């Protein structure tokens, strides 16, 4: 089971209280380095929840969640000028530089970048570099948005363009029960209460409990099943999925196992929940 994040969320909750002063709009210049061994038993739980056949090559979503508690530690730092709770994960980019295998020890280096201007507020990026035996295997940029917050010193940055989305004919239906929030929390260590409990979700403005975005994204990647040595996996998070819920999935471009795009979307409104792209990456 992944490292518990209760203490981090506790600290994050404290940060939302109007106490103490956050005067500087700058990010603290901190980074975290941590080595994490890839354990088969813990990975098996993750793989099964996100519908990945258990093999020796580790799903990139798992490399994300191993670094996730560390990224939350960085974001929960009192000197970070934005509140961690309430920040929304809007985009995630993973460059898989080489396959990573069970038994490998992953050396993580994490740092924050930003704050950046965004039309809807301000974003902060968590940048993760992962190495195995000194060899770069993965680099990740997770973009978090503090909605409605504008910081005077934020850098300008090109945003991922908001593409027009026309819902395709779904080729798969995902019937998501509320239990999926608990199952993903258990295997990922992300116990954010909005994924576990309807009341907590209401507190953050959602009518019901919502699915973990990285659950949906990781499951979509399992379905896209890239069989490439090196690739870029881009994910844009749109509307959250309310649980329970049945959503559509389809490839919108390319083919399974290759470079492709996929969409997870609302069956009634046709609005996207998670849009993913796998692209070739030159080594």
């Amino acid at each position: 089971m992944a490292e518990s994040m209760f203490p981090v969320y506790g600290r994050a909750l404290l940060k939302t209280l109007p106490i103490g002063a956050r005067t500087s709009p700058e990010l603290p210049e901190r980074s975290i380095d941590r080595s994490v061994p890839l354990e088969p038993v813990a990975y098996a739980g993750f793989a099964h929840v996100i519908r990945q056949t258990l093999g020796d090559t580790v799903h990139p979503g798992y490399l994300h969640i191993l670094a996730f508690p560390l990224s939350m530690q960085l974001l929960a730092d009192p000197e970070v000028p934005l509140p961690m709770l309430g920040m929304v994960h809007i985009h995630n980019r993973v460059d898989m530089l080489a396959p990573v295998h069970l038994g490998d020890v992953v050396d993580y280096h994490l740092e924050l970048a930003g704050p950046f201007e965004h039309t809807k507020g301000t974003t902060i990026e968590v940048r993760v570099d992962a190495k195995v035996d000194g060899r770069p295997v993965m680099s990740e940029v997770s973009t978090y948005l503090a909605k409605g917050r504008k910081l005077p010193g934020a850098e300008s940055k090109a945003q991922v363009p908001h593409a027009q989305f026309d819902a395709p004919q779904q080729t798969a239906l995902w019937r998501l029960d509320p239990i999926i929030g608990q199952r993903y929390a258990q295997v990922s260590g992300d116990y954010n209460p909005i994924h576990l409990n309807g009341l907590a979700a209401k507190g953050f403005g959602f009518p019901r409990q919502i699915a973990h975005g990285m659950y949906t994204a990781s499951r979509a990647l399992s379905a896209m099943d890239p069989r490439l040595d090196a690739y870029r996996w881009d994910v844009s998070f749109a509307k959250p999925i309310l649980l329970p819920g049945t959503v559509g999935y389809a490839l919108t471009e390319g083919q399974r196992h290759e470079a492709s795009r996929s969409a997870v979307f609302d069956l009634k409104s046709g609005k996207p929940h998670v849009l993913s792209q796998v692209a070739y990456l030159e080594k």
Partner: protein
Amino acid sequence: MSAPSQRAVILGGNRIPFARSNKQYSKATNLDMLTSAIDGLTARFGLAGERIGEVSGGAVLKHSKDFNLTREAVLGSALAPTTPAFDLGQACATGLEAVVSLNNKINAGQIESGIASGVDSTSDAPIVIDDSMREILLELNRAKTMVQRAKIAAQIRPAYLAPQAPSTGEPRTGLSMGEHQAITTAEWGITRRAQDELAVASHQNLAAAWDSGFFDDLTTSYLGVSRDTNLRGDSNMESMAKLSPVFGKRLAAEATMTAGNSTPLTDGASSVLLGSEDWAAEHGFTPLARLVDAEAAAVDFVDGAEGLLMAPAYAVPRLLARNGLTFDDFDVFEIHEAFASTVLSHLAAWESEEFCREKAGLDQALGSIDRDKLNPLGSSLAAGHPFAATGGRIIATTAKYLKTTGKKRSLVSICAAGGQGLTAIVEAA
């Protein structure tokens, strides 16, 4: 004497009448029904106490306790307990694959006789628990101390306790077979009327066959059921037209698939007796037909590149090419009616120049089938479709049909879950 590879002959069959789910057979297990089907065959051919070369069989919806289902059925039957058996599975093609594999073993000279069988109960279905609960129970089982057990047990949540019944949903897509077929139906533009006509013909043909006594030596009544309970001999276009669509309601195209032109969930079992020509002669059995060749195909339906149930459309051209045959060489076409629109989609594909050239790799369209030759004794829309029992029903039916009518050759085609299909050529012996 025929070539060594042509030794196997089909000698007969026996099935229990098929019953709609949760009706007459609701308390009968797969083992009960399979044993009954095999025992009926054993009685009809006087094989009690005899050691058969091998019995093959399977069920699509199978309890884990039934890991040796067919062997258990043999042990409970009148066959000699020294008769070996094996289970196999190819979704709805299980029953036909059971025939094909024994046919091949006989042709290879490995066995002299065999019984191919299949069964399915959608009433006595295996129910499983949520994956989280299952993982917790397995962990509990592995735990060594009370403290470990208490910690693991503390993870149990009420939501984990809800049982999960099996569905006809494809594991990779979550779409039911009907929802998949609705997409294919729309793509091929199969009309509601054409589907209803096929369904009515199926009921009328099956009713006529029962009325004529055709099934008297192919079935044994069971639990008070002496005819397929889904059969409605008085089906007509008016009654079919009254039914509301059940699949394809989420699609842009008009929903056309109803409970009348789709097969219902069904319980039942079937068996087929096969033997070498010598074994048949020694026992004084008259061969009905022989299965001369078979071809399986599969399609990549996962992201919608091809329809889930379209694999037979690919298997048939390959089977015909290998045997140097065209549709004109066949007197009968036994195409399993998973849905009326499945059959009609296959027919449309074979009539399509575009499909045959671009997808099946042919020079021209395969052609059309004389509808009088299609499922002349009805098929699954009328009889019902206990998944693994359908292959045995079709093989025994068509073998006897060839024998009694003096016709020569039958094409058998069965679509299956997972984007698969199995097809075979049966010729009069």
